[in-house]
């Protein structure tokens, strides 16, 4: 018996509940990864000495539509993709783009000072710079011969 008790109202997003049940079922039967649509937005993570740069493809999304939060070593990007149909009475020929709420969470290899985080969005590409605080930088240890 598995109890689904989360802080969310299960009826607010029934698909999320279904997804969660599916994940549970998949985990119970051999743990095969379900072949679902890739998560949105797709992220590329760049690592360097001075920190991490997260780059995401977010077509149609502006910085105002996004909520970026950093807590210790966890980065969360939330937002909503709004359909750009402004006219009423339209006939769809093709509907391939996806809309709705999205959220991604990423665990970073170090704690981040939220005040140092910079984000910019341009041409549907979101860039989040997460500098590594001085205290978190690796220290080179001098080895002395006795």
């Amino acid at each position, binding site marked *: 018996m598995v109890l689904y008790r989360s802080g969310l109202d299960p009826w607010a997003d029934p698909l999320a509940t279904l997804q969660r049940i599916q994940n549970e079922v998949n985990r119970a039967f051999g743990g095969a990864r379900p072949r679902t649509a890739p998560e949105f937005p797709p992220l590329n*993570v*760049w*690592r360097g000495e001075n920190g991490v740069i997260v780059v995401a*493809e977010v077509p*149609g999304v502006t910085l105002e539509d996004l909520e970026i939060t950093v807590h210790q070593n966890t980065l969360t990007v939330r937002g909503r993709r709004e359909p750009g149909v402004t006219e009423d009475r339209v*006939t*769809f020929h093709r509907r391939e783009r996806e809309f709705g709420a999205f959220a991604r969470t990423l665990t970073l290899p170090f704690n981040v000072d939220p005040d140092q985080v910079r984000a910019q969005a341009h041409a*549907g590409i979101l860039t989040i710079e997460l500098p590594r605080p001085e205290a978190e930088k690796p220290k080179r240890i001098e080895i002395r011969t006795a």
Partner: protein
Amino acid sequence: MIDQSSSQAPMSEDRPETTRNRPVFSPPTDIYETEDALIVSMEMPGVEPDGVDVTLDKRVLTITGVGQSVEPEGYALSHAEYRAGDYERAFTLSENIDRDGIEAALRDGVLRLTLPKVKPAPAKTISVKAG
């Protein structure tokens, strides 16, 4: 041995190869019709307005976009979920389109094309004169 798989376009096989060694994607597209126009809305993240090319040859609408990739200097890619690339798609239109009225706008990586329909000529009554 040359590994062909990495240089091929991931979405279409019948297209000639590009000279640049980067993928050509078939971007997700919405097409809908209003009373007086056909609207095409296509996701092409990483494309600047001058990288888009839209042509309408007879009834075939071809859209290409050249994407810019973000590669921060001094950083190494440690986790990748997408590849930057170019975009190409072609559609055969069934409506009669007013070629001179086509408008294209690129905003936040989404291209929006407005293709106005040709208005049908108003019915004309021909008066018959008595001979």
